[in-house]
């Protein structure tokens, strides 16, 4: 009897081949993703991906230029030369990890064995990455200017370009709240998308199609409901973070409200995209888990984006999580004005519009068709 139940269950489960494929694909994708994240791919130890470091050469001497060339030749760093103001702005906006400033008198200090006028301008929120960069710079100084005996002389002055003030939250808190909120939102919206399959299975979708309502209106109605739920959920999460952890949600209310709306739109379009892609609940479960985990991993919901290899950081731009998290960092940590955050909001809106347009086509093909 047990065997009969077992055989029947396997037959039923394996009847949905696409669903089974997605179930098998999920762990493979996760293994691959984390293997890349933790540098475990390949039999040999993989060379670390280079970190982009901005360089400001105020000394403009042969020694400083030679040293910059040496740093640039390292596999771990990729140097970009900038003026100090621009470099600071790029770091402030979160575009680069840090800027290494070679002050005037660098060449002289090297030849006299004096204290090197080196300063690193960085973002405290990315201290870990900065320390890794700094370790490479220090090592190279020791290697290049071996006659500098005292280690204290190669101390690089660290100067955060974003000042920590009492009204600013801990960057770790911003990461935790923003990252988790968006990831959980994606799961909620995927569940709402499942409601469309319920409508199909129960026959209410058929009745909707019989009525004078246009199929696209059914889809947009579902998306609207998902968006309302998303706005409520995100607001609830931020209010909780304010009450429980003191996240200053009233710091820039306009930007926060607009960003919540943009994220909710992008996420709800993702919900309808998911449900338009699949035909069964098993497929929905597999597909949603894969895409949500993938987007959350590369987008910085699970691991801070700065901890990931460069190519994965490049991929992050395809994730809703990335633009949302960076937007929240802009508001709470970088405290950028609304105009500076608008491009991220526009990208979220563009993602939403793109996914909605694709969903409309897929919805007609996969959900509406009775054949």
């Amino acid at each position, binding site marked *: 009897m047990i065997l009969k139940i077992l055989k029947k269950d396997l037959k039923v489960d394996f009847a949905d081949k696409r669903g089974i494929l997605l179930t098998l694909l999920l762990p493979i994708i996760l293994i691959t993703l984390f293997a890349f994240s933790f540098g475990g791919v390949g039999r040999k130890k993989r060379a670390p991906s280079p970190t982009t470091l901005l360089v400001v050469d105020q000394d403009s001497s042969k020694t400083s230029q030679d040293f910059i060339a040496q740093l640039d030749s390292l596999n771990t760093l990729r140097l970009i030369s900038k003026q100090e103001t621009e470099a600071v702005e790029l770091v402030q906006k979160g575009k680069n990890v840090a800027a290494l400033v070679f002050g005037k008198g660098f060449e002289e200090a090297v030849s006299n064995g004096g204290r090197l006028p080196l300063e690193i301008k960085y973002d405290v929120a990315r201290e870990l990455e900065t320390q890794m960069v700094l370790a490479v710079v220090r090592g190279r100084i020791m290697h290049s200017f071996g006659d500098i005996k005292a280690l204290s002389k190669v101390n690089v002055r660290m100067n955060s370009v974003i000042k920590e003030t009492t009204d600013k939250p801990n960057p770790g808190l911003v990461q935790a709240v923003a990252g988790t909120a968006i990831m959980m939102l994606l799961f909620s919206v995927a569940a709402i998308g499942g409601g469309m399959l319920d409508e199909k299975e*129960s*026959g209410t979708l*058929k009745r909707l199609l*019989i009525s004078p*309502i246009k199929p696209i209106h059914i889809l947009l109605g579902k998306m609207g409901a998902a968006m309302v739920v998303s706005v409520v959920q995100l607001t609830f999460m931020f209010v909780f973070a304010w009450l429980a952890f003191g996240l200053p949600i009233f710091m820039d209310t306009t930007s926060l409200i607009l960003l919540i709306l943009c994220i909710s739109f992008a996420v709800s379009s993702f919900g309808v995209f998911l449900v338009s892609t699949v035909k069964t609940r098993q497929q929905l479960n597999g597909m949603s888990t894969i895409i949500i985990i993938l987007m959350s991993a590369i987008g910085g919901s699970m691991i801070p984006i700065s901890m990931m290899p460069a190519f994965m950081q490049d991929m992050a731009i395809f994730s809703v999580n990335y633009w949302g998290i960076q937007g929240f960092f802009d508001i709470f940590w970088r405290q950028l004005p609304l105009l500076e955050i608008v491009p991220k909001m526009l990208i979220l809106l563009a993602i939403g519009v793109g996914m909605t347009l694709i969903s409309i086509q897929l919805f007609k093909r996969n959900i509406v068709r*009775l*054949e």
Partner: protein
Amino acid sequence: MIQVTNLSKSFANTKAVDDINFEIKKGEIFGLLGPNGAGKSTILNMMSTILKIDSGAISIDGLDVKPNSKESKQLIGVVPQEISLYEELSAYENLLFWGNLYGIPSKELKERINSTLELIGLSDRKKDLIKTYSGGMKRRINIAAALLHDPKILLMDEPTVGIDPQSRNRIFEVVETLNKQGMTIVYTTHYMEEVERLCNRIAIIDSGKIIAQGTQSELQELVNVKENVQLEFDFLSEDQVASLRKSLSYPMIQKEKTLIIESTIKELSGIIAACNQLGLMINDIQLQKVNLETIFLSLTGKQLRD
């Protein structure tokens, strides 16, 4: 009212509807009778414009549905085979939602909901959630949802599936009331009793084709099956049969101790009297009526519920 001309529909390599033609007059209850998978729901789905027509045409009230799906939707109400209601909403909320999709003004819609609930006999339960309803009650709300926009034609796709005889009777009463009010009804089923009770005219469908259509008496004339009385005796000699033939004018066949007499129930008393006169001892009497089941069997060689 409805004209279906050379209608065909295929799914992959299967021809679900194969070049069918029929006409439904205003105020008729037209039955589409056939086994599961015969193509009845496919025809209804094309009539309700949610399924594309491969070839042929459907005209409703003079309107070709293919290019005029929006207008056609206002003319027809559809009762789907599935109970297409939201279980978490009350009957009233469900009807309000479905009615709103047809753009009925709020006040008018509320009046229609109340009168429709009255018609189906569920006014007192309107605030209860659908999930608390019995199967039969859900079926009645399923019908009500199709009536709110006051359609001229009601398409009913197996509206009594899975319910008890009492609930079925309530639905029959609703159908009859609607028809008396002048509504044209297309009724699909694989229960011949329903068609026999409700329908003025019937189309018998099998494997996507209409194999016969007309009133029930017209269909009976089509097939060479007659109503008969079967009598089983203790003993039956050829002389006794010959004597019976002389006293009764009906055609009869003897099969050992059984006599099959081609006649109706009305003549049964006369047949029994004739048998008594000859001293024949009747062990069993069976009346074989000619119904749609018999007609379907005769036309297709299959049972309706095959």
